[in-house]
């Protein structure tokens, strides 16, 4: 059965235990960082995903004065149900596994970088030094052994809970019915990491996406492209034909311009 993680941001206290656990389990190096240059995200550190950072906690300041509020949001690969990166990868180096994780197989990777541009969430990062793509693995090896992902195990507030995908989707649907905001239930055709929040996700800086998965998104572009292409091609041929005819008529009548 496909696994999912329900991320209830109402519970998150921004302790960053998930960040540390991820670094330790995945043997990622510490990197020197500075405060985020964006004033609404200044305590977010590190400021973004990188080959050494599979996950980080976003510290988002909303409002000001007495209404100032901090919200925290863990960011990592969302392990889409129909992943754009897997769809884009020409070599099947990226693969969606049956139990949820999107895994990377470096022996098949050619380093084309298409996954970096295809991912709707900006997750895959290219490690120049080792010539590999790096991203959250959903701790697929731990899942196989019946263990939770390292970040989920480390979370002290149960913000992160591993469960079956259909259960996570049901809980998120119930949360929506109670007026809460969700992310990943609909976006890009659904993801295996589903968020619940009191704060709208647009305020947390999550990218807006329609519910179209890769197949629907590409079919839509392809259909409009073919229609536009036929119209433009026909117009070019018609204009040049008409123009040539006009030139011949002018030439035959002995006139110039």
């Amino acid at each position, binding site marked *: 059965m496909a696994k999912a993680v329900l991320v209830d941001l109402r519970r998150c206290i921004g302790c960053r235990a998930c960040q540390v656990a991820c670094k330790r389990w995945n043997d990622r190096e510490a990197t020197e960082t500075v405060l985020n240059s964006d004033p609404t995200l200044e305590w977010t550190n590190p400021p973004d995903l990188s080959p050494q950072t599979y996950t980080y906690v976003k510290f988002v300041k909303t409002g000001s004065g007495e209404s100032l509020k901090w919200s925290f949001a863990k960011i990592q690969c969302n392990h889409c149900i129909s992943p*754009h990166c897997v769809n884009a990868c020409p070599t099947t180096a990226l693969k969606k596994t049956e139990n949820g994780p999107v895994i990377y197989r470096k022996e098949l990777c050619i380093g084309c970088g298409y996954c970096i541009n295809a991912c*709707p969430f900006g997750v895959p990062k290219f490690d120049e030094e080792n010539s590999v793509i790096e991203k959250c693995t959903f701790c697929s090896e731990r899942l196989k052994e019946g263990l939770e992902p390292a970040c989920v195990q480390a979370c002290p507030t149960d913000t992160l809970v591993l469960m079956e995908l259909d259960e996570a989707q049901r809980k998120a649907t119930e949360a929506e019915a109670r007026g809460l905001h969700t992310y990943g239930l609909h976006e890009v055709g659904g993801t295996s990491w589903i968020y619940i929040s009191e704060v709208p996700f647009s305020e947390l800086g999550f990218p807006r996406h329609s519910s179209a998965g*890769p197949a629907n*998104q590409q079919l839509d*572009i392809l*259909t409009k492209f073919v229609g536009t292409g036929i119209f*433009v091609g026909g117009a070019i041929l018609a204009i040049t034909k008409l123009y040539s005819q006009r*030139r011949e008529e002018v030439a035959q009548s002995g006139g110039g311009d």
Partner: protein
Amino acid sequence: MAEISWGIMLAAYLFVGGMAGGAYMVASLADLFGKGKYKVLSKSGTYISLISILVGLVLLVLDLGRFDVDPLGVLNAYINLPTSIMSVGTWIVTGFMIVSLITSVLWFFQGSGLVRKILEIAGLVLGCSTAAYTGLLLAFARGRPFWASPYLPVTFIVSGTLTGLVLALLLIPIIAWFMPRFFEDFKELFENREKFTEILIEGQRYILTLIVVELILVIIELGTGHGGSLLAIGSLSVPFFAYIVLGLLIPLGIAYYTQRAEYVVKYSVLVPTSLGSFVLVLIGGFLLRYVILFGGQLIA
């Protein structure tokens, strides 16, 4: 955070890939429907398509992030049909390269005209698909909303045809000057002032149309997409304006001038002006890819 994963080599690949497809389209249409009038142009366009696609492939392969680790790994790109547009594109480009190579050989050694024309029909489809692929590759990338436009591949086909046509025309005097021994018909055409003038003026007629269509497509793109964001990025606004002015407006003016002055223009004015404008069109074609490619990665 802005991250550039596709750089200038890929912009060059998109440019030459589109130009290869466009040059072959021009060459095959001229041969199939030209009643024998445009043989040299067809040859020129076919040779351009082969050289361009080979240059493109070299650029692409060298730009792969794992080329130094696994140089033959690129062959893995043939395995993921049909989910990945890049995999589909790899097959299309391979087929196109083979057709372009055989057509070039048939032209050079004066092989069977029937076989060549059959190949040209297949190559017309493959060439158009190659030019379209360079745009669809970007348009399908969900993480870059700036590219997600159905007009983008159409713009790349039009630009590919335009740049392919101008380079095919430009190659005629270049070959006539530098390699007249191997390409006597190029030399003959170039030295026949009346015929070369006629070809240039007819070419300029198509160039005029293609530039107007490309301008309309770019205006639509800017209007419906992220034009404002693009112009706000200093490093992109300069090449963008250079593309519009140098790559489109000046060649458009020159093309228009050649049509107005068909019966009075002097050969000594027409040839250098036209050839100069062709160079500008080529620079514009590259700048278009550069601006689009970097714009998509810099605009959130």
